[in-house]
Each structure stands twice: as structure tokens, then as C-alpha cells.
């Protein structure tokens, strides 16, 4: 049995004058899950999260928190809390006072507040001496933790994050991503995180929702979205990808309309077939494409010339120019590097189980 949704959105829309920021959003968030909403800037994800915490009003629609309608409830009465992109720490208060802020509002005794603040400092791996510290004396990463501690002190039913890590440098961000996931498991709370970084979403989330100009394009677990995107947009958003426009020939085999793809061993029951004249997009991730030797075969084969090689650390990426001029990307682990050199003719191939057909109208 799937758990009851803790938050349910029905037909949530937001208009700014003529502009539709959110278009009829439906969403169910499960109790205890880590949902990440990913989208390019301007896709409406920040507007959505601000509506969910109550800072922004919606134009239309209903929001249930468990069985209670909350869309009319002001932010300060909602049992949810958000970590802001800017963190929004109070610069005139110490770290301890920031963390205790929600407890102070509830008129908790100073001793209890302090005890809770110390617990949270421990939980977030900050030394207890930080209690007295001024916000201006904290580094970027420390401020993140303070903001998180303050939000946890509120003890929200759902904790929202509005791209809080985006301003940090790479290594710190990677560490905090893992810590956040860890924290999610330890606290068991429902986390809703928004970001424009796919990698961040992949590392942390149970489910990912891809947002595009005010609506959800796809909501699924990370692997599903990566391997079986439902649109070109999602496919391209989820990292480097090779996309080919294809259509079915007389016998149902796929024929590239831009790149000459030879279909080899695709059986009649395969999903990799199209009715005659029907068109679709064939997707294959760069790591699933292989360099073929003269005598080896694959389900799909493309010929071309190796044009460039980029070292990505653990992997190497190759750009191959197909015979008609289009480019393909191939990625290999460092130890499987392609021995050839720039300008060599290559045969590329991949198998049907690593390919995916995007059927878009």
C-alpha cells in the first residue's frame, strides 16, 4: 500500500498579469519522501514552492496538507518551512538566536531552546561554540547549516528548499548534497527540494519532477527519468544525450531522417519499431554508445569521423561527426579509452536495450 500523500495539489495555477507562471499543476507528495523539482530558470519552480509555503498566493487551485485545505492559510500558520536561496538568516542575530527563532516565537523557555539549539548544532556537525557566533563570521557552508538548523528547529511537516546550495563552490556543494540526503534519512521528514542542477537532483531524490514553463513534464524516480524520458526536453535536460529523428520504413524498421542509422538485429517484437511513416525520436545516452571494430555488430550502427576528445576526469567524452555532418557524443570510462586519434574513421553502435523511443506529438 502506498502511503497517504502528505501534500496534494489540484489545479494550482498562478498568473502574473498575462503571464502564466503555473499552469494547472497537479502533484502528490508522499509522506517522508525526498522530491526534487528540477527545471530551467523561469520554469515556475520557485513560484510553486513559494505558493506551497504561503509566501505567494495562488490564482487558482487547491492544496491539501493531509486532509486540511491550506491554500488560504497565511505562511506563519502553515506547519511547513523553507530554506531560502539566500538563506535569509537574520544578520542582527547570533547563530544561536537564529536557530532558536521559531522556538522563541512559540514562547519556549530559554533553557529548552538552548538545549534544542545545541542538539541541532550537533546534528548538523557544527561545533557548539558556534552558538555565540555572529552570522557575519560564518562561512558559506556554515551559514547553510545554520539555515537548515533553524528550519529544523521549526519542526516542519514538510521542509522546502529553494536552491540553497547554488551559491556554494563545487566540493562543498557535493558534500552538503550527501549530508542533506543523510539528514533526510535520519529525520524521516518530507523534503521538497528545487534546483536547476540535475546532478543535485539525482544524488538526493527519491523522485524527480521535471518542470517546464509552468507545468510538470515528467515525474518519476531518477533512473526512469534518465533512461526513459518522455520528451526531448527531459532527455536533453537530464544531461548529454544523442537524439535522432527517426521514422518507420515499410517493414517497420527505424530509419534516421537526419543521420544514416543502420538497424541490424532489431526483432519484430522490439519496442524499437515504428509503423510505416510514423515518426519519433530515438534516444541513446553517450555512455551506451560503443566504438565497433570492423567485424562486430550492434542493433544500431552509425559511421563517422572522430572529431574531438575531452577528458572529464573519470570519463572521456568524444565528439563524432556523422557522415551527414551531425554530431554524436560518446563517453567511455577512462580505462576503456578509445585508442584511435582525431580524424580517424569510426563505426559507432549501440543495442536496443540501451536505446529509448520518445513518442511526442
Amino acid at each position, binding site marked *: 500500500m502506498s502511503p497517504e500523500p502528505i501534500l496534494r495539489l489540484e489545479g494550482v495555477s498562478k498568473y502574473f498579469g498575462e503571464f502564466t507562471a503555473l499552469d494547472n499543476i497537479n502533484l502528490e507528495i508522499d509522506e517522508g519522501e525526498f522530491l526534487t523539482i528540477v527545471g530551467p530558470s523561469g520554469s515556475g519552480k520557485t513560484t510553486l514552492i513559494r505558493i506551497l509555503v504561503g*509566501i505567494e498566493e495562488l490564482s487558482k487551485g487547491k492544496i491539501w496538507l493531509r486532509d486540511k485545505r491550506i491554500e488560504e492559510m*497565511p505562511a*506563519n500558520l502553515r506547519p511547513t518551512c523553507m530554506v*531560502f536561496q*539566500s538563506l*535569509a538568516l*537574520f544578520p542582527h542575530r547570533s547563530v544561536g538566536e537564529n536557530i532558536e527563532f521559531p522556538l522563541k*516565537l512559540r514562547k519556549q523557555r530559554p533553557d529548552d531552546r538552548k538545549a534544542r539549539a545545541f542538539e541541532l548544532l550537533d546534528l548538523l556537525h557544527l561545533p557548539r561554540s558556534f552558538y555565540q557566533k555572529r552570522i557575519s563570521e560564518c562561512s558559506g557552508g556554515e551559514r547553510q547549516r545554520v539555515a537548515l538548523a533553524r528550519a529544523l528547529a521549526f519542526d516542519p511537516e514538510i521542509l522546502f528548499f529553494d536552491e540553497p546550495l547554488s551559491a556554494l563552490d563545487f566540493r562543498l556543494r557535493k558534500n552538503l548534497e550527501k549530508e542533506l540526503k543523510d539528514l533526510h534519512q535520519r529525520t524521516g521528514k518530507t523534503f521538497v527540494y528545487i534546483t536547476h542542477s540535475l546532478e543535485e537532483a539525482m544524488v538526493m531524490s527519491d523522485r524527480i519532477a521535471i518542470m517546464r514553463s509552468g507545468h510538470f513534464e515528467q515525474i518519476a524516480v531518477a533512473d526512469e527519468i534518465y533512461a526513459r524520458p518522455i520528451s526531448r526536453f527531459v532527455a536533453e535536460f537530464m544531461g548529454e544525450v544523442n537524439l535522432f529523428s527517426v521514422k518507420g520504413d515499410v517493414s517497420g524498421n527505424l530509419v534516421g531522417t537526419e543521420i544514416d542509422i543502420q538497424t541490424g538485429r532489431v526483432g519484430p517484437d522490439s519496442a524499437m519499431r515504428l509503423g510505416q511513416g510514423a515518426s519519433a525520436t530515438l534516444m541513446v545516452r553517450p555512455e551506451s554508445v560503443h566504438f565497433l571494430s570492423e567485424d562486430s555488430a550492434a542493433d544500431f550502427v552509425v559511421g563517422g569521423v572522430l572529431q574531438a576528445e575531452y577528458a572529464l576526469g573519470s570519463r572521456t567524452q568524444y565528439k563524432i561527426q556523422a557522415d551527414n555532418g551531425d554530431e554524436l557524443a560518446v563517453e567511455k570510462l577512462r580505462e576503456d579509452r578509445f585508442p584511435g586519434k582525431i580524424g580517424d574513421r569510426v563505426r559507432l553502435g549501440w543495442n536496443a536495450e540501451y536505446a529509448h523511443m520518445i513518442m511526442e506529438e
Partner: protein
Amino acid sequence: MGVVLLISFLAPLLVIAVFSVMPQKVFSLLHLPDFSSYKLVFTQGYIKSVVWSFGMALASTVMLFVICWPLAFGMAKVFKGFGLFITIAVVVTLFVSENIRLFGWVLTLMKGGLIEGHLRAWTGLTFEGALYNVPVIVFGLVYAYFPFMLFPLIQGIAMVPDDARQAAADLGASRWQIFYEVDLPLSAPGIVIGSLLSFVLAAGAMAESKLLGGQTVIVIADEIETAFTYGQNWPLGSALSIILILIIGALSIFGINRVNLDLIMGGRRS
């Protein structure tokens, strides 16, 4: 630069300071100091004028804060083009001399003036006019120093980050709690500057009590002017001035030390 400051600012202050310890009614600094003016100040009831001046200044400053806060908040955070309209409207009043504006209020409030005159003509009812009492003096101070509270407050409130207010609301703070916990402390530089300006100006003001208040209350600035002119007693006038300067100076230094003024000048909160 230092020389200009010395001649134009510090030297007159020094002259006043020395005059204040000279014997009564002398017009030269070449006398033995006897501090008799200070004795006079404390025995002849001048302290009452000091108390009236500061009391009314305090009352007008508090009222200004209460009146200006919502307006300044609107202008800093809510109104867009309308804020500019209010700014211009307030600034334009400064183009007309304060005395003339106060005379306008005299004509409005006096018996037979704009209000009482119309009331009598339309209804037959009458009253004694609203002039010549302490509340109308405080009203005059509030009116005259309105811009000096309003504009610093706008500056101060503009420094309160929106997301800090939103975060406070998100963490459960009511409007009042946001005001008390976030708005007040974060706009403190603007509040302090606005309050100091209007308080200091009101404490040294004279026209309001003279024009609107008649002779109800003699304020300290009035006493100083009288001592220098009709009284022909420069040392007494100097002693009163020095007392005023000391009190105001102490208040200013106290106030300014409490806040980080760099912030309102565009400095960053580090």
C-alpha cells in the same frame, strides 16, 4: 580642510563656551570667569524651558515615528510610482519657509480662521480656536519636521531584506512579531537618524511655540534669543546654549554609537 573646520565651526563654539563662564552682561572675553550664568540658569527657572523644549521634542519625535512608520513602510516596500508622488509632495513643502507655513496654520486654526470661521458661518456653533496651547505646538513640530523623520525611515526600512521578513513569517512570526523581531532591529539606523534629526531640530525650535503657542510656553531657543538680544546678556545666552549643545551632543553620540551608520550610506552588512 582642517583650517576651514576650525574657523567656521569650532571657533564659534569655543567663543560661546568661554562667554558662558564670563560675569553677567559683559561683551568681552577679557574677564575673570565666575560661572555666574550657570548659577542663574539653575536658579531663575530656565530649567523649566529646557524641560519644555525636550519634553515637546520627545513627544513630537514619538508621534512622528508612529505616523511616519506606516507611510515609510509603504513607500519603501509597497508603493511603486505613488511613492515618488509622496516624496515630491513632501519635499515641495520645504520650498516654502517654515514661518510662512506656520502662519498658514495660524490662519487655519485661529478664532475666525479657516476652520472656526466656516463652522460658525455654516452651523452657528463656535469655539475658541485651536491655537495657544501645548498640543498645537507639538502638532507644529510634527508638521515641520515630518520630512526629517520620513526620509531616513524610508532608507532604514528599505534596508530590511524582504526574504528576512518572509523567512520570519515562514518560521511562524505574526505581523507584530515580524515588526518587532525583524523590521525594527534591521531598520534601526534609519530610525536612529530620523529620530535624532527630528528630536534635535524640535528641541532647538522656536517658531512653533512663538507662532502657534503664543506665550503659553517659553522654549529654550526663545530664552537664548532673548538673552542675546533684549536681555543684552551674552554670557547667560552662551550658558543656555552650552547646556543645549551638551545635552543634544550627548544624545547624538549615544544614538549614533548604537547603530552601524555605514549601512545607511550604502555600506554592506558583512
